[in-house]
């Protein structure tokens, strides 16, 4: 498989100092690993000592995993085109509305969900082809403004078609609680967590072992070289947008049963996803997921135990995290420092 070898070489070039087993090496530096381990130990000990803490941790991790999925979608697009898609949250919202509509028409949950993912994929590819491709390679301002335009269109269209009232979308999973030694955890939270982790694993396998996945990575890392070995770079970027839309749709389907479906619910969600992505380092998929989980757990615990923050200041706290990371370690937890060519 010549392509795989080339990708491996491209990857190695990128991390010059990395060992030959490129994907087995630790994705972060030791202090970061230590910090994360300490955080996990903190969560573990707290959960063992108090049932409420355990509950809040699990539901925080579940919410965080959906942030992580959206953050992953942002990272996918960012790695390929250095563009942050400001409409990502609105794309997820639109997918959730499609699911609601399908269920409303009488489809059972699972077929509706799968159909939604398909529609989202096609929609994502279509968006890239229609409006992102024409501005490819233009200045940042231009591309950012185009994604803002997309944000406005999707937001307005959703309110227009489905009106602004809160819609209820059922969950695909049981909503009753399950007991673990006196602690009641909701099955839905556990399933959300499980689905997110499953999706991330599948995605990892896809990017590591399939021809299309490798080609997508090559197109993102070295467009010119990838084109030389026969990768259709333009289509790979479109595929990336499609995948990002699917990730957004999954996140949307997971969130909506808890938060209710309304265009405005997804605006803060986008900011949480940004914060998660920046926390993990905008370049790193693993970082996005870990960042999402950490942010979700942290916010839930802070909101529960620090009454000054409550629910109103949750978003500003997340943004303070974002700002702090940007200022102290712009590469994020998992990112590598970049050298800019002048």
């Amino acid at each position, binding site marked *: 498989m010549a392509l795989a070898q080339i990708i491996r070489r491209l990857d190695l070039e990128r991390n010059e100092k990395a060992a030959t087993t490129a994907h087995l090496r630790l994705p972060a530096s030791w202090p970061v690993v230590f910090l994360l381990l300490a955080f996990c130990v903190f969560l573990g000990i707290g959960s063992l000592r108090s049932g409420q803490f355990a509950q809040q941790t699990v539901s925080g991790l579940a919410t965080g995993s959906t942030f992580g999925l959206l953050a992953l979608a942002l990272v996918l697009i960012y790695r390929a085109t250095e563009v942050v898609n400001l409409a990502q949250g609105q794309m997820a919202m639109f997918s959730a509305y499609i699911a609601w509509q399908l269920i409303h028409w009488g489809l059972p949950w699972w077929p509706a969900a799968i159909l939604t993912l398909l529609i989202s994929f096609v929609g994502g590819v279509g968006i890239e082809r229609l409006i992102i491709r024409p501005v490819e390679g233009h200045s940042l301002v231009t591309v950012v403004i185009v994604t803002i335009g*997309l944000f*406005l269109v*999707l937001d307005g269209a959703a309110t227009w078609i489905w009106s602004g009232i809160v819609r209820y979308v059922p969950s695909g999973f049981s909503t009753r609680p399950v007991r673990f030694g006196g602690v009641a955890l909701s099955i839905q939270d556990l399933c959300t967590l499980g689905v997110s982790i499953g999706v991330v694993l599948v995605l990892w396998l896809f990017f590591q072992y399939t021809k299309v996945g490798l080609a997508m990575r090559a197109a993102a890392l070295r467009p010119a070289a990838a084109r030389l070995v026969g990768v259709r770079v333009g289509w790979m970027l479109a595929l990336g947008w499609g995948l990002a839309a699917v990730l957004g749709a999954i996140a949307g389907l997971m969130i909506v049963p808890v938060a209710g479906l309304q265009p405005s619910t997804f605006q803060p969600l986008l900011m949480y996803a940004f914060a998660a992505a920046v926390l993990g380092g905008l370049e790193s998929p693993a970082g996005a997921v870990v960042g999402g989980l950490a942010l979700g757990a942290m916010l839930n615990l802070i909101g529960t135990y620090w009454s000054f923050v409550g629910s109103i200041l949750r978003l500003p706290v997340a943004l303070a995290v*974002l*700002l702090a990371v*940007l200022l102290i370690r712009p590469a994020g937890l998992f990112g590598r420092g970049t050298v800019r060519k002048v």
Partner: protein
Amino acid sequence: MSYRRITAAGRLSGVLAVAAVLSVLPFLMSDYHQTEWAYVGVYFIAIFSLNILTGYTGQVSLGHGGFMMIGGYTSAILAVHHGWNIITTIPIAALICFGTGIVIGIPALRLRGILLALATFALAVSMPQIGLKFSHFTGGISGILTGYRPGHWLYPLSWSCAAVVFVLGWLVLRGRTGRAFRAIRDSEVAAVSSGINLALYKTLAFGVSAAFAGVAGSVFVIASNYAEPNNFPVTLSINILVGAAIAGLGSLSGMLFGAIVLEFIPTWSQSAPLIGSKQAPNVIQGLLLILIMLVLRGGFAGLLRRLGGFAARSGASLTDRIPDTS
């Protein structure tokens, strides 16, 4: 090169003509339309302030609604809690926003491109939440009622503020400072190597831009009679950027058009046949925005330049000259 520069006299007469039309306008309109046009003035100031930062200095900001909110609340709090005359609060609002802008500008020195846009977006998103939280000062969700009935003086007030801001901004942009801004926009490295103090001019651009946005926010609160968090949603920040893009970034000639579009698109598109609905404005604004970026990247100013036959650099529109700084 068939490049004809518009002479300084030509430009001045253009500005004077617009000013003359604007000063006659209120005598021809009903009170209701006067209020609408006063809001056009507010948007004009806001677009100008963003244009200084994004169009001239190349720093993308999605947080100008946040600055407007700070300015607006400054006016409301001073006028209601401290008994100031609300018009004298405008310069104070500008000063406070200048300070805030400088403070925001300092982290901006380390962030470039998209990260800066995210950081300023964070400002826009969190300001309304902060307004809700510290209800002791801000009145929480119900906000602060200023109690000033905007009457016939609203239009003159709004447009004289716009005129002052325009002249001040033009003075800043035309000289040494403006050249430094544009140099930073075109290439930071080149700017530094020709001796421009990057830290100074970047924070200055943030300060000036925020101060003007504060004036816009202040007049906005005076015009709408109250300051409340819902008046300054995230979409306001986005709308300002939309207006600036429609007007044409890095150019002054399209700003009035951008402001008019921002004010009237909601009304027009609601009453439009076939698609008329309450939600149409967002969709239409978004489509317009995408279309302008795809087809007419210089915005309205670029169109003017082309129509006038002054297009010197065909193909290279102004936004393209803002270097990719990510």
